[in-house]
């Protein structure tokens, strides 16, 4: 029997498979078709201080081997997430969950994280400094080492839970940003958020998305994500959660060889709602085929 367990900041996961924020809602839709307790954990829909409707529609565009989204962080706000979503969630998911947090100022982040810190259901905070969909009057926090580190410091002051910084790939030097987060006290790095992309409708001759540009994800981005995980693994000591285009157990193993301790699955959930279940079922066989006994042994194995 192969061993698929991994340890993420002190908590053991039955397997490294984590549905990615924004592609799994709060889990209910998936709980209809499989028991989501088989998951390592999952990352909840990005939560902000205030409720948000998000961007105008169309918010979705299709691409070769992927999709664009410009959802724009639609969510009921952190207070409602705590008062309504988490209690509902506790009925179908009995493990600790990863709470994904976004913000438009350092105070926003601190506010939401402080509130979520008090929730025993929350095992990890995943702090998204990368969402390219939301225009907050400038570049996102994740595009400079200084501003990313500032968020880390503010958040670390208000929580004892492990903090994973989720970085944007739309940068010249991902390593310097990851290192700045580590130096500022982050407990881990989540890589990657979506690439900034665009499609134009040939009939209307206008951008497909109402927001013009959107976040590109799906199997098309896998080589870029893998490269960033590999680069960041060489530079930091804290664990990395790898994601971007993961569709299969093979992709999971490739991400772990590059340096990921756990692996998130995003867009795949939307088109194949059973993807995570299928990956979890396929992992042991794939490990046997490749002669891997203990999955945690291969983390960073390609270095």
């Amino acid at each position, binding site marked *: 029997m192969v061993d698929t367990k991994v340890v993420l900041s002190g908590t053991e996961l039955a397997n490294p498979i984590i549905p990615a924020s924004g*592609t799994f809602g709060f889990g209910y839709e*998936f709980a209809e078709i499989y028991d989501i307790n088989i998951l390592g954990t999952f990352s909840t829909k990005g939560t902000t201080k205030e409720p948000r409707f*998000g961007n105008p529609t169309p918010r979705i*565009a*299709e691409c070769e081997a992927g999709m664009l989204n410009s*959802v724009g962080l639609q969510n009921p706000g952190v207070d409602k997430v705590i008062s309504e979503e988490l209690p509902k969630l506790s009925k179908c998911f009995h493990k600790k969950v990863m709470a994904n947090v976004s913000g438009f100022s350092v105070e926003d982040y601190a506010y939401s994280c402080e509130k979520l810190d008090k929730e025993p259901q929350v095992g990890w905070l995943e702090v998204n400094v990368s969402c390219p969909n939301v225009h907050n009057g400038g570049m996102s926090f994740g595009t400079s080492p200084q501003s990313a580190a500032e968020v880390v410091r503010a958040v670390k002051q208000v929580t004892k839970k492990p903090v994973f910084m989720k970085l944007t790939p739309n940068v010249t030097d991902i390593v310097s940003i990851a290192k700045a987060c580590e130096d500022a006290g982050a407990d881990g790095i989540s890589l990657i958020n979506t690439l900034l992309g665009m499609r134009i409708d040939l009939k209307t001759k206008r951008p497909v998305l109402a927001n013009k540009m959107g976040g590109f994800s799906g199997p098309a981005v896998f080589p870029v994500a893998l490269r960033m995980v590999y680069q960041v693994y060489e530079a930091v000591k804290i664990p990395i959660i790898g994601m971007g285009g993961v569709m299969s157990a093979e992709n999971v193993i490739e991400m772990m060889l590059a340096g990921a301790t756990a692996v998130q699955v995003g867009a795949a*959930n939307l088109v194949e*709602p059973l993807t995570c279940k299928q990956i979890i079922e396929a992992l042991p066989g794939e490990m046997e085929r490749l002669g891997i006994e203990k999955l945690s042994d291969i983390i960073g194995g390609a270095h």
Partner: protein
Amino acid sequence: MKQEIFEVAGKRNLTDTVFEMLLYGDTSAITAPGQFINIKLNNFFLRRPISVCDCDENGLTIIYKVVGGGTAALANMVPGDEADCLTGLGNGYTLEESGARPLLVGGGVGVPPLFGLCKQLVAQGKQPTVILGFNTKAEIFYENEFRALGAKILVTTADGSYGMKGFVTNAMGGLDYTYCYTCGPEPMLKAVYSAAETGGQFSFEERMGCGFGACMGCSCETKYGAKRICKDGPVLRKEEIVW
């Protein structure tokens, strides 16, 4: 929601660009007319949402218009091919409010979901009137199928080449109806909204990521807050719609 493999059991042209396709497979997740399925097609990343036109325990019928690559691929499928579908998506129409003489208004490829609805209304002993709106005679489909259900049928064409000239709303004036069900392009929905003298249910379209409520790709604002077209819709009630 269920994920099922269906088999293409038949396909025919209704017009130059509109096809009717019969799919055999497990339809147990389908609970109301106006729901839709989301079809996986080779070489396309996202699934394609298509309304269920009619359905029984052996399978279902869809009607689709070729407008791009995905629907073209669908039109190239032949009997025996398999199609991976998510079924039982969306809320669908509810029949309770229909009253004795419901009005059904469909435009173009908005017509299909009204067929299953009409069938069920007739089965409940209601006397539906159906307005079918098309651009031109060559684009008309399913007139006879609706007639065969025993409903009263009015056809409009924008260019007057068949039936009443004009839009579906031109046919609404003077009709006596208890409730209004509609599906079609957004400008038509808006016009019906203004013209309708009763309550009603309106079916919307939006570009979708998942089709089952997970991604927030298809949200719209309503008087009762944000709703997902794919999960809380595609059918919205007249009183909640915000244009």
